[in-house]
């Protein structure tokens, strides 16, 4: 049977797979096209994305066809499988079978499709949802939310939906601050040889001689292997590689030297050496994937000779600011205006990270904001993480949600049962993620450390920050709130342990308390007061 197999990102045309071979011989041409439907799991979709392990997939198809040809003797089989993004209505697979009679053509075709779906390494990766019609504000923003997520559930959604960015190789200089994405194994023993930890004389362990002939002198960089005999000694410096196994080093303080002869006074059990492989054995993992590359971990990589580790890439962050009432910090606010602190907050959080930040102010008017967005579309669509400050609530001018939707983001949630910062929007578009942060500085503080940090950890492959337990230094008096609260606090060592002092804040607009805040205390819903000394959960904040 003549077999032809293609895996291609190109569209499959209706006439593809046609042939004039076997004209006159082929009495049956069975043609099957698998077409992408416009719904998947009950959702309207625009396209499906396919991925293939192409060389193996092609071989596997040939193997299946060859084996089926024994049961269904056909003349020819031509298979084209498309990969990549395939819009609904277009063909994902085309199979054309030529045979003398219809029975074997139908048999081969049906059985081939069954086997393909079991064994051929091709995957439907994801369904691309149908984009909402562009530039319309969905009615849903003005509706009360159907379901409000708890903070824990919201964090879990982020953890599930944000996936690690593809790892990239970096030099050790570039890798600082990144997350190691491979486990690095030692290529050699560390130390590579038995090494002396003293200045002294190496002799055979348990050599009972009293006087020894000094036959060599070894410094730290020397490598002259030789088998020592009874009565022989080698002068060694600290760090020197010993010339053979089963030696001990006698400290020079215990030795009397005359010319090339030494006499050993006291000797103890101590061998005074670091054994080969004592620190790390060749093939042992020296650092596991997920490690944050700081001074210590980078030094370990350098020692292991891993100079181009695979690490998390730099994250591209775009920050859009909304709100006409906000003026730049250098400007005196007119009545009704306030100075912008959010762009400084975001910049201060992003700058220490291996990330690139681009910030842009948007006009308050939705139509003008869209024009501005269109002008900066390449920048915005290139971002791994899109942050929008303000406009997250349900007021007339709050268009963040609509803006994210026209940028292709699917909104996962737009409210969290949390104070401060409840109107928090989280959306995903493929591997890109977006947050709409409520405009108040305290909401930014809580939102960044509670939610954005989880997304950043997932993107880079780090462990997301978790809540710790600590004790209250002073009582926390709160009016009972039906929402869970994140209370800014100062976490300080006191009497040998860490204590949390709740800071004063009145509304989410408070900025002053941020100067001292290095923790967020989690106050469960409907808590009126917590006494000093009470154990609480808190999130530690280092930036």
């Amino acid at each position, binding site marked *: 049977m003549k077999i032809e197999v293609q895996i291609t990102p190109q569209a499959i045309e209706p006439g593809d797979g046609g042939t004039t071979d076997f004209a006159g011989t082929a009495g049956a041409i069975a043609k099957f096209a*698998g077409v992408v439907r416009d719904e998947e799991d009950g959702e309207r979709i625009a396209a499906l994305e*396919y*991925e*293939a*392990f192409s*060389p*193996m*997939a092609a*071989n596997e198809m040939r193997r299946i066809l060859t084996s089926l040809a024994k049961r269904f003797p056909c003349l020819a089989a031509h298979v084209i*499988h498309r990969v990549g993004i395939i819009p609904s209505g277009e063909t*994902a*697979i085309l199979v054309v079978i030529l045979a003398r009679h219809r029975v074997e053509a139908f048999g081969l075709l049906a059985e081939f*499709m069954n086997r*393909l*779906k*079991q*064994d*051929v*390494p*091709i*995957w*439907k*990766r994801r369904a691309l949802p149908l984009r909402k019609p562009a530039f319309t504000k969905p009615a849903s923003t003005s509706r009360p939310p159907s379901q409000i997520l708890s903070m824990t559930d919201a964090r879990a959604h982020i953890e599930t939906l944000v*996936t*690690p*960015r*593809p*790892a990239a190789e970096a030099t050790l200089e570039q890798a600082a601050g990144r997350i190691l*994405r*491979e*486990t690095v*194994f030692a*290529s050699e023993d560390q130390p590579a040889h038995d090494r002396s930890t003293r200045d002294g004389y190496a002799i055979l362990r348990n050599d009972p001689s009293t006087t020894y002939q000094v036959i060599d002198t070894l410094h730290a960089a020397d490598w002259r292997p030789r088998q020592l005999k009874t009565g022989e000694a080698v002068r060694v410096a600290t760090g020197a590689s010993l010339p053979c196994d089963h030696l001990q080093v006698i400290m020079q303080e215990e030795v009397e030297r005359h010319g090339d002869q030494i006499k050993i006074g006291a000797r103890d059990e101590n061998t005074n050496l670091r054994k080969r492989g004592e620190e790390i054995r060749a*093939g042992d*993992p020296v650092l*596991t*994937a997920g490690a944050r590359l700081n001074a210590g971990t980078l030094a370990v990589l350098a020692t292991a000779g891993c100079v181009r580790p*695979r690490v*998390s890439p730099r994250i591209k962050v775009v920050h859009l600011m909304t709100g006409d009432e906000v003026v730049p910090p250098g400007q005196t606010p007119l009545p009704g205006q306030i100075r912008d602190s959010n762009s400084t907050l975001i910049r201060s959080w992003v700058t220490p990270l291996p990330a690139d930040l681009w910030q842009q102010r948007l006009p308050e008017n939705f139509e003008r904001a869209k024009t501005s967005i269109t002008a900066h579309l390449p920048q915005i669509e290139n971002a791994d993480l899109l942050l929008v400050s303000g406009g997250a609530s349900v007021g007339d001018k709050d268009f963040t949600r609509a803006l994210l939707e026209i940028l292709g983001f699917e909104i996962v949630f737009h409210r969290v049962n949390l104070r401060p910062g409840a109107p928090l929007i989280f959306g995903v578009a493929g591997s890109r993620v977006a947050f709409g942060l409520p405009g108040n500085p305290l909401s930014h503080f809580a939102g960044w450390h509670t939610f954005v940090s989880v997304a950043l950890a997932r993107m880079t*492959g780090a462990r997301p920050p978790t809540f710790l337990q600590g004790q209250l230094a002073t009582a926390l008096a709160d009016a009972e709130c039906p929402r869970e609260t994140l209370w800014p606090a100062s976490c300080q060592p006191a009497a040998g342990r860490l204590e949390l002092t709740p800071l004063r804040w009145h509304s989410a607009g408070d900025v002053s308390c941020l100067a001292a805040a290095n923790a967020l205390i989690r106050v469960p819903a409907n808590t009126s007061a917590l006494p000093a000394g009470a154990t609480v959960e808190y999130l530690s904040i280092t930036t």
Partner: protein
Amino acid sequence: MHILFFAQIKDAAGLAEWDLPVAGELTMGELWHRIIAARPELAVFQKSTRLARNGEYADATTRFTNADEVALIPPVSGG
């Protein structure tokens, strides 16, 4: 050993290709053990995932060496 990840495994691992140095000949079970030791996040895939060695599905008799290209094949869904 050069290892290839696809589909959901690629997402979980965060990369498509990975070099895992191994010594000697490994059985399928031993190889999985090495993979999971280095990448615990892949443990959940072991039951459903087949291994391919140099482009062909492996079976219980297959032995893997450092020179092999090994693909982790999660359940397929082509067509």
